[in-house]
């Protein structure tokens, strides 16, 4: 039985925004509004949703890159919210992040070798004279030629830069890696190479992934479980086969149907949702999704649905289910 590596409970992150007028009330954006899930060691949970749903903020709040408003994050069984900066620094060795665009996260004036060596020099986990050896080892692990160490980021392709992003993230042998849209900026033929790499190093290093993505094809291939978010809340949560095969929430169903399929021999009935995603500053009352939901009834405008468990590990927040 695998143990839970990460347990997130009722996580909230509210951002203050300017008042409507000088005399107006204080306003907040509820970017993350009571999110809860667990990830077992060595597994991948994907956070899925459209822009502004709070998936990236959730990832950052878990890593304490933004300070959560409230809630609890248990990592290896220990509460990490409120950890003093010094201890947090030590914890960060075990919790890393890969960003979407490695072009903008790499220092343009540093060589690839220097970039990958940086984590070792900051955390001093190994003696200085071993760093070069370890850098070469990691470069090989992510299928980068160690001869590239003297090159600069602009000399590499997008796929190669993402390999460096991954190399930096795994340098200190972390246990949890938050992957924030790691393949979204890559070309079709490169995307799969990087996904396969992420899967390989997960096996090899027993990594746990929190995978943030809006690409449902990618999510199906990489995840063990999936959480669907809409306006700061998880609306459906379950293992990957349940979410893709037997989704309950009307939003999940619409999302799955909207993805264009690259095949001509069978067609999927499209559920085209009306309107656009409401502003998180002023979310709709009751169920946030009621303004676009094809199944909404009067009750949905008034009553806030809660996430209820339907079968082992499969929960959905919908009054109509």
């Amino acid at each position, binding site marked *: 039985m695998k143990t839970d590596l990460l347990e997130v409970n009722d996580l909230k992150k509210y951002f203050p925004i300017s008042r409507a007028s000088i005399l107006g009330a204080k306003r907040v954006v509820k970017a993350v509004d009571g999110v809860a899930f667990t990830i077992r060691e060595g597994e991948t949970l994907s956070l899925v949703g*459209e*822009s502004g749903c709070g998936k990236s903020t959730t990832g950052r709040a878990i890593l304490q890159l933004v300070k959560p408003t409230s809630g609890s994050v248990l990592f290896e069984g220990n509460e990490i919210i409120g950890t003093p900066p010094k201890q947090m620094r030590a914890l960060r060795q075990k919790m890393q992040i890969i960003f979407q665009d490695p072009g903008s996260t790499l220092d343009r004036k540093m060589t690839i070798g220097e970039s990958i060596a940086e984590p070792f020099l900051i955390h001093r986990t190994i003696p200085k004279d071993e760093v070069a050896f370890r850098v070469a080892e990691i470069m090989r692990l992510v299928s980068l030629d160690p001869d590239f160490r003297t090159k600069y980021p602009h000399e590499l*392709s*997008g*796929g*190669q830069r993402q390999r460096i992003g991954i190399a930096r993230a795994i340098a200190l042998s972390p246990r949890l890696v938050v992957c924030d849209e790691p393949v979204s900026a890559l*070309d*079709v*033929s*490169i*995307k*799969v*190479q990087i*996904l*396969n790499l992420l899967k390989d190093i997960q096996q090899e290093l027993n990594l746990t992934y929190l995978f943030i993505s*809006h*690409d*449902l*094809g*990618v999510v*199906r*291939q990489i995840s063990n479980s999936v959480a669907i978010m809409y306006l700061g809340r998880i609306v459906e949560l379950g293992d*990957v*086969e349940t979410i*893709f095969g037997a989704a309950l929430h009307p939003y999940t169903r*619409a*999302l*799955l149907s*909207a*993805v*264009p*399929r*690259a*095949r*001509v*021999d069978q*067609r999927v009935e*499209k559920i*085209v*949702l*009306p309107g*656009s*995603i409401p502003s998180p500053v002023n979310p709709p009352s009751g169920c946030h999704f009621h303004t*676009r939901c094809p199944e909404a009834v009067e009750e949905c405008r008034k009553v806030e649905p809660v996430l209820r468990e339907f079968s082992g590990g499969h929960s959905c927040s919908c009054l109509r289910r």
Partner: protein
Amino acid sequence: MVSSGFDVANTNLLKITDLKITFKTREGVKTAVDGIDLEIGKGEIVGLVGESGCGKSVTSLSILRLLPERTASVAGGDIQLQGRSLLACDEKELRKIRGERISMIFQEPMTSLNPVFTIGDQVSEILYEHHGKHSASRAEIRKQVIEMFRLIGISMPESRFASYPHQLSGGLRQRVMIAMALICKPDLLIADEPTTALDVTIQAQILELMKKLRKELGTSILLITHDLGIIAEFAERVYIMYAGKIVESGAVNDIFLHPLHPYTIGLLHSIPKIEEKVDRMESIPGTVPSINNIPSGCRFHPRCTCARKICETSEPGLLDRNGQRVRCHQYSPAWASEGVVITV
């Protein structure tokens, strides 16, 4: 209307023949598009697919002569709109063609809209520009714009007329771009990654809308994308581009059911499937070659799993297989005698 030179009865709306586009770079003149042929029929939706740097956007920009003049030039070939060469048009003629016969929408609507004018004014401006200030009254133009807003599904078009771009969502902004592109009822709409910046539920709306407009207005669409899913669901014919060449083209049904070119096959295999989880996803090895470093022979040979000696040395010609065209030595009679296999 532009009167002279157009063969209106021609069923081929746009015909590109042997188009070659070069760029001046620090390392000399480089060829971005190397002799492509492309045709779009009346009312047809045609896809142009390829990865970044393959030349698909450069091709689309060249149709409306929007390439940066200082660095890029059309080095050969022709682009004809109903028999009239667009390359031979002067700036005055081009202004008539742009918007009125052919218009274009881009990936990121925010950078194409002017932030200090209302969307109503921005769409009206096009009517003023093309029909002159005298032909229609202000009220008449406003009515036409609101009608177009309604057609493309902008709710409350009367009040939205006075909205500024920043007040709209991404999906609405793209709708405004489509309104601008279609207000003069062009024959051809070039859509360069029109939904790439949009969320998937909004993408579904925009694609639905473009389909509806084609049906109602009969507009031909050239859809440029890297997303084969969109092509499968939306286009009728497709051109697959790799490193400045069309490597395969044909009816969407044929190409998705029986892809011939190893690159097309590789692309179709490397889409992360939403239908089922696979143990190991297949990928195309290597990376897309840069314009400075185009491989010899068949441009795909360094990444091709079935490449043989001939692929390294000689460039394959375009072969026709029942209307499906493919640029690959495998389908030529000489293939059988090429025993040596290059290993990737």
